[in-house]
């Protein structure tokens, strides 16, 4: 039972550390290998613990919870984050970038065509800081 519980702890550790920490850097965010590595160790511990347990009811329940959490996380990072709009009307390479004017952090208007008049511009659209 100890091993099974340790396994569940590692599953939770993998999910929490990914969400709170490893999501910050592309090398650990793009493929959540830190969580997946902990999941593998957790699976080995849970299966081993389950086999050796004299009574299987609680170890089975804990293992099932662990597996469900791993599945939920894996589906979350593989399916949910792929769910993006098609953006077929987005300006393609070679197309004119639609001009616009928007306020900056000081409420000062910034116009794309005024910027491109003096330099190349890298437009970075992002989801926002909530």
């Amino acid at each position, binding site marked *: 039972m100890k091993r099974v519980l340790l396994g569940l702890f590692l599953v939770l550790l993998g999910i929490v550390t990914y969400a709170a920490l490893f999501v910050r850097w592309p090398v650990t965010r793009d493929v959540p290998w830190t969580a997946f590595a902990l999941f593998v160790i957790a699976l080995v511990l849970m299966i081993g613990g389950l086999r050796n347990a004299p009574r299987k009811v609680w170890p089975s329940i804990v293992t099932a919870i662990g597996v469900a959490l791993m599945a939920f996380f894996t589906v979350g990072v593989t399916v949910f984050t792929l769910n993006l709009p098609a953006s077929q009307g987005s300006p393609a390479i070679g197309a004119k970038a639609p001009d616009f004017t928007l306020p900056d*952090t000081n409420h000062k208007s910034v116009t794309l065509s005024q910027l491109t008049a003096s330099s190349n511009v890298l437009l970075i659209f992002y989801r926002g800081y909530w």
Partner: protein
Amino acid sequence: MQPIAISVDTPEQSRDLCNKAGYTFPILSDGNASVIRQYDLLHKGAGENGHDIARPAEFLVDRNGVVRWRNLTEDFRVRATPEQMLAATRSLH
């Protein structure tokens, strides 16, 4: 090359982000997502409390206002790396 970031955040929220992260490039506010719509990047209901936000995307626009490189990620956790963006910029010269 001039980087410009755009989101639906208010100028105040963007200013907080600049202060925290130490960004020195302009961050623009597209509160009603009109430019995000113009670029067909609206991700409906994907923000906090079901707000419409932008999907992540990067465009390199040259001095004629023409798109010379773009990156539309298929996974919102995966963005263009600084190296990719710099390589695209260098290819313009």
